[in-house]
């Protein structure tokens, strides 16, 4: 490992519309070093990296102050293209792939090897055609470097979310001159086994001399892989330290400013009735990348049922199908009555609610304020937050009530924002997730489906969210079905855990079952053949 500093960020400060989110942050990164960047939701991690990568959001909001120094030279990137030219690659927190193109095309976007033909002589290099064979070859090479199994010819739109992430990472690796790679929460959408593969690949890369900045809320990962840890809190640097000189507990304390016990409180045994609230028979769902083939299960009133399994096996398809967001079939009975699963409106009205795993695509109105985001569904389906004028002829939006409910949840979930009128797009990833949860809670559902509820949120917030779900379950008797890639999370809050493999349930276990048993179910059928 070289000791030469390749990147230095010096006294970086940044304001968004008068709201200071970075305050004189400095750190250095050496050649071949892996730097773990951690901090609570909204601490400023993504913003700091966006500055490094020359993202337009930064320039459009008034730029930043401080110096970015690469190889001893002060640089200032006006666009990501400049950053790429300087050897920086970045995998963003949110995907930036072209859904209608294949893995190969995405990986080699703008770096396509070109074929020479005679038209080039006449009309210049724009007449070169794409060399598909070569492209495919290069793409496979990049994918193999990561040690994963992705079909290079698959359309991104049809990929399970984990594969999308790998495609995106492969794209950054493919850049021949990449010397610094920034990964903003790359593992948030990956299962534990997938994350391991990625971490291994990163370590290998670092050995080859590439420097890596790695952002994650899974602190164990960071401690495992990073040589050095940088902790941000409220936009300030709290600590820059060699990994072997610190530990998990200390890092968490630095992050939140006080000590947290990371285990969720153990709940008192509650009574789950024998009454079956939801019964699903032979459900199939045509959700690209998360196909559900044939799933049957019962949910008892008041329980927390978990769905786990590897990415792409269909666990996410289950709630999406039941809520009518993708074509689906089979029989679903809710409180003993047949439910028309194609009618989302009716389902919500009857007391089902869903927090989607796709928070930017389905979960949020990115261009609208926080209070709209939280109240909209309840307003449309349950007619809450409306004033009835002229004997109900006109249903007038009650902006005051909308604001109040938003304030309530901002406080309850500790959502970091400037006001209830802030646009959802401007929130940090984790805070957006909290908005999605608040939206479902406002509905006061009888049964709540939550997909990946803690994806991308920090330790403190994770505890908060899981506690909120538990509390909600206990106090309101709300039945909760939680779908998660994190087995640990499921085990900490569920009463039963079903594992989904190849579009079917391969088994249901109590949370106290051994890890190996879960592992067997996850890879069960595919290994047997």
């Amino acid at each position, binding site marked *: 490992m070289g000791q030469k500093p390749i990147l230095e960020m010096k006294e970086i400060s940044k304001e968004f519309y008068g709201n200071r989110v970075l305050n004189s942050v400095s750190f250095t990164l050496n050649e071949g070093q892996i730097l773990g960047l951690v901090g609570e939701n909204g601490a400023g991690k993504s913003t700091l990296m966006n500055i490094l990568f020359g993202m337009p959001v930064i320039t459009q909001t008034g730029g930043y102050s401080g110096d970015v120094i690469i190889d001893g030279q002060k640089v200032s990137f006006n666009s990501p293209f400049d950053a790429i030219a300087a050897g920086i690659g970045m995998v963003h927190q949110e995907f930036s792939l072209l859904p209608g193109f294949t893995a190969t095309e995405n990986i080699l976007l703008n770096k396509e090897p070109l074929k020479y033909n005679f038209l080039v002589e006449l009309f210049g290099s724009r007449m070169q055609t794409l060399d598909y064979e070569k492209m495919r070859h290069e793409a496979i090479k990049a994918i193999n470097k990561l040690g994963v199994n992705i079909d290079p010819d698959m359309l991104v739109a049809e990929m399970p979310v984990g594969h999308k992430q790998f495609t995106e990472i492969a794209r950054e690796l493919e850049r021949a001159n990449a010397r610094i790679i920034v990964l903003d929460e790359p593992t948030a959408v990956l299962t534990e086994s997938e994350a391991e593969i990625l971490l291994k690949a990163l370590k290998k890369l670092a050995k080859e001399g590439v420097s890596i900045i790695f952002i994650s809320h899974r602190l164990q990962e960071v401690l495992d892989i990073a040589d050095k840890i940088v902790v941000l809190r409220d936009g300030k640097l709290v600590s820059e330290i060699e990994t072997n000189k610190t530990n998990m507990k200390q890092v968490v304390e630095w992050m939140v400013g006080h000590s947290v016990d990371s285990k969720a409180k153990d709940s008192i045994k509650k009574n789950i009735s024998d009454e079956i609230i939801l019964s699903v028979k032979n459900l199939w769902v045509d959700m690209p990348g998360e196909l559900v083939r044939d799933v049957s299960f019962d949910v008892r009133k008041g329980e927390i049922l978990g769905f786990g399994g590897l990415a792409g096996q269909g666990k996410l398809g289950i709630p999406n199908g039941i*809520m009518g*967001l993708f074509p689906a079939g089979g029989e679903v009975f809710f409180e003993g009555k047949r439910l028309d699963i194609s009618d*989302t*409106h*009716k*389902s*919500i*009205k009857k007391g089902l609610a*869903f927090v*989607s795993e796709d928070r930017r*695509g*389905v*979960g*949020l*109105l*990115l*261009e*609208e304020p926080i209070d*709209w985001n939280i109240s*909209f*569904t309840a*307003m*449309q*389906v349950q*007619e809450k937050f*409306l004033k009835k004028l002229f004997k109900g002829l*006109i*249903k*007038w*939006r009650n902006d005051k009530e909308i604001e109040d409910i938003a304030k309530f949840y901002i406080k309850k979930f500790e959502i970091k924002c400037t006001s209830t009128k802030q646009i959802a797009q401007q929130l940090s990833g984790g805070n957006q997730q909290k908005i999605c949860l608040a939206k479902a809670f406002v509905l006061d559902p009888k049964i709540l489906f939550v997909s990946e509820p803690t994806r991308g949120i920090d330790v403190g917030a994770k505890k908060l969210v899981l506690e909120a779900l538990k509390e909600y379950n206990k106090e309101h008797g709300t039945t909760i079905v939680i779908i998660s890639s994190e087995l640990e999370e499921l085990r900490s809050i569920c009463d039963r855990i079903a594992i989904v493999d190849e579009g079917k349930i391969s088994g249901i276990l109590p949370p106290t079952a051994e890890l190996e048993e879960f592992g067997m179910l996850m890879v069960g059928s595919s290994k047997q053949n």
Partner: protein
Amino acid sequence: MKENLNNINEKRNFGQALKNFIDVAGWPRIIIGIFLILLFAMTPIAKLRLSTSLSDTLVRVGMNAIMVLALVPMVQSGCGLNFGLPLGFIAGILGAILSIEFNLTGLKGLFSAIGISIPFAVIFGYAYGQLLNRVKGDEMMIATYVGFSSVSLFCIFWLLLPFKSPVMVWGYAGKGLRTTISTQKFWQNSLSDILSLRIGETFYFPTGMFLFFALLCFLIWAFFHTKVGTAMTAVGSNPDYARASGVSVDKMRTLSVVISTVLGAIGIIIYQQSYGFIQIYNGPLYMGFPAVAAILLGGASVHKANIGNVIIGTFLFQGILTMAPSVINSLLQTDMSEIFRIIISMGMILYALTRKTKGNR
């Protein structure tokens, strides 16, 4: 010392306020606004009367404003700019000529025209909405074709429909509608003249027309404060979110198209009552573009528009369109105002369209 500080503070506050104003208003509007003020300031040099110029501008604003307002619902629901506005105009023309055929005059004639046109607009809008729901993503291009082809289709009907009123049909043939029909003997200015203001010989303010526009603005504003209006905005903002919240995306889009078409119909009738003529055949063909240009100049983007954009945009667009040709004309002492008008109008449309993909935030 203290005073000094205060002074500095004040200066800073002023600077901040100015910056905020520029941020909110946007440079294009400020520049065009300044240009417009310059044009008004040049009226004495060009030997034009300021009062006449102002009055002309205001009348044109009133004439066109509802057609611009008609664009708001579809922008908000995510259908983009309604280049198919001519469809609404056709509904309006149908209402107008039927009211004349029935020999209705004054306000009664005008509101009958509106009343008759609405069912047509609803039917047209519904069918048009269904079509747009099938071409999500390409709405604006399809809309342009809908506008063009409906105008062409109705050229046939204008010839064939058995209208009798001698003011409307070609004198010599005794059948087929004329290209322009005068509303003068029926309901010209019947709305504009209500409570209208006349100062001196040259200044005229069409109060009634503005009141009616204000009423429609209020209705649209109110609509977007209701449950359905909120749903429509959400559909435009993120259709997947709306669908997951149990809102029917297609229904909301269709509704927005219907409202837009109805407003288009009303808009053209108000235009006719002020202009004094009903233009048929190819008349409505290009009348959608100025409306689109106006709302874009007003600061709307393809997926967000509000009533402020409508008012500011209409005023700027119509202001320049009224003032520039006449000022240039009298400065150059030629009579090419019609040519200038076309050049300026097309130029502004072109400019506005080039800016259309940029958001206004």
